[in-house]
């Protein structure tokens, strides 16, 4: 563990509006979000000396540097595994600044998922190699061609074993949309849904996912600036400390198309991350004040609640039903409305919301939030005051 003065802190956040038609290039969305994050932090974009994003981002580091005027970067990498990498970026940002390689580290993500391409539709242009974790070769000729189809197939054994119904999943969607309804930045601001709305929404993938079990396709950009505590204290915002950030991938597993290893009931990578996080941060995910859990599809919430040890295996549907995920419950879930309600910038907008919760500046502010848990399946981070 790093000394207090060397600890990585999130000092700036920026995001564009979340829409269905941004009307500008992904490279511009990225540049705008980065500038906003720098202005929020009170740093000169020229001083950014490390940057990272993950697979399926079309803005190159050179694009970012060219728009922002960054003089020299000393570290960059492009993480695999799509949205599962959203919280993995925190692992790398922490390592980059705590090791001393970088002083001012940028995480960026910008996508025109809806207006430029349809992110949830079959991806004809994906390489048959293992990019983004999906072994397309073994799915495509069998008509399993969308993220929703892979997700539903992978979750089938779990949903079957515990008798999880469409209503059980619907309650999760209702929870997200309720929070989004009072977040002005959310695409679904003032548009809550009922369980009936969920039950009446059309099938996307039988027998599991209805339209309202799925996240959105969004246009938008998000950025974060990370530095060390000794530098953070002179900046504009209260530093949000990264108390721990961990990642795990096990043999023969994939991300969304996770078919080939394990019992498909437990999520071993999340369990490993939860244990290591508790050891380094001194607090377990379940004991933090806010849970920002990646919600590409509703079953992911159940599996991550169990994987990150909020409850026992098979207990998540009752954990939801008992109201624990409500904003006044013991595990307030994504008060921004999550990726389903606010926007789907491939997970990154959940991280900026976690930061706002610790700062105390969120639209749906959780009282006295001291710590927040950020999760994207294979990665988890705990941030706090």
């Amino acid at each position, binding site marked *: 563990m790093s000394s207090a003065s060397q600890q990585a802190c999130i000092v700036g956040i920026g995001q564009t509006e979340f829409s269905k038609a941004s009307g500008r290039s992904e490279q511009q969305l990225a540049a705008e979000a980065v500038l906003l994050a720098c202005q929020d932090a009170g740093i000169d974009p020229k001083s950014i000396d490390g940057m990272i994003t993950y697979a399926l981002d079309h803005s190159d580091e050179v694009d970012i540097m060219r728009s922002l005027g960054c003089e020299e970067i000393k570290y960059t990498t492009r993480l695999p595994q799509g949205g599962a990498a959203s919280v993995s970026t925190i692992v790398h940002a922490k390592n980059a600044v705590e090791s001393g390689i970088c002083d001012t580290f940028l995480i960026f993500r910008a996508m025109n998922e809806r207006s430029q391409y349809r992110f949830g*539709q*079959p991806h*004809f242009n994906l390489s*048959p*190699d293992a990019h983004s974790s999906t*072994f*397309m*070769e*073994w*799915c*495509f*000729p*069998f*008509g*399993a*061609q*969308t993220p*929703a*189809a892979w997700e*539903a*197939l*992978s*979750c*089938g*054994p779990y949903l*079957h074993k515990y008798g999880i119904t469409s209503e059980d999943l619907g309650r999760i969607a209702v929870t997200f949309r309720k929070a989004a309804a009072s977040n002005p930045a959310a695409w679904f601001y003032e548009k809550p849904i009922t369980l009936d709305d969920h039950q009446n929404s*059309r*099938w*996307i*993938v*039988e*027998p*599991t996912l209805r*339209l309202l079990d799925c996240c959105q396709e969004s246009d938008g950009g998000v950025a974060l600036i990370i530095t060390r505590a000794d530098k953070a204290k002179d900046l504009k915002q209260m530093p949000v400390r990264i108390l721990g950030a961990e990642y795990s991938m096990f*043999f*023969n597993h994939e991300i969304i198309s996770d*078919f*080939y290893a394990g019992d*498909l009931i437990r999520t071993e990578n999340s369990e490993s991350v939860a244990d290591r996080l508790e050891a380094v941060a001194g607090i377990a995910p379940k004991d933090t004040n806010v849970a920002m859990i990646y919600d590409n599809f509703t079953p992911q919430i159940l599996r991550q609640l169990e994987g990150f040890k909020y409850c026992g295996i098979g207990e998540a549907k009752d954990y939801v039903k008992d109201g624990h995920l409500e904003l006044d419950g013991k595990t307030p879930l994504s008060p921004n409305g999550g990726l389903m309600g606010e926007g789907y910038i491939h997970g990154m907008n959940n991280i900026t919301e976690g930061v706002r919760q610790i700062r105390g500046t969120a639209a749906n502010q959780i009282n006295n939030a001291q710590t927040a848990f950020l999760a994207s399946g294979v990665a988890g981070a705990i941030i706090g005051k």
Partner: protein
Amino acid sequence: MRPDPIQRIDTAFFWEACERGEFVAQKCEPCNKLWHPPRPMCPDCHSLEKSHAKLSGKGTVMSWVRQVRPASFGFKESPFVILVELEEGLRFVSNFESEDAPEIGMAVQVDFAKTSGGKAVPVFKKASSV
């Protein structure tokens, strides 16, 4: 109809076997272990020496879905997609060929279906109906 399989250097043996009507898995020569999906190296003994073994084609349904929206590209009608746990302990994503949806735990048996380009891919039917 259905799209042709995507072939790569390390997996061509599998699709070529399908054209002969054989359902196979990669086999490590030194240690005899079977692997799917195929890979260049045996993760147990790290040998590059590999052949393939014919599988029984028997398995059980672990999970199933049907991609409704968007409909499965290249098909007249979206098929039932199944995750099969094969008798040999490997898992395989395929289709369940039937008017009716499969059930988790159902015993299935391999068959082959033609693709639009005249190739073949393994699909499954209810075991008793083969």
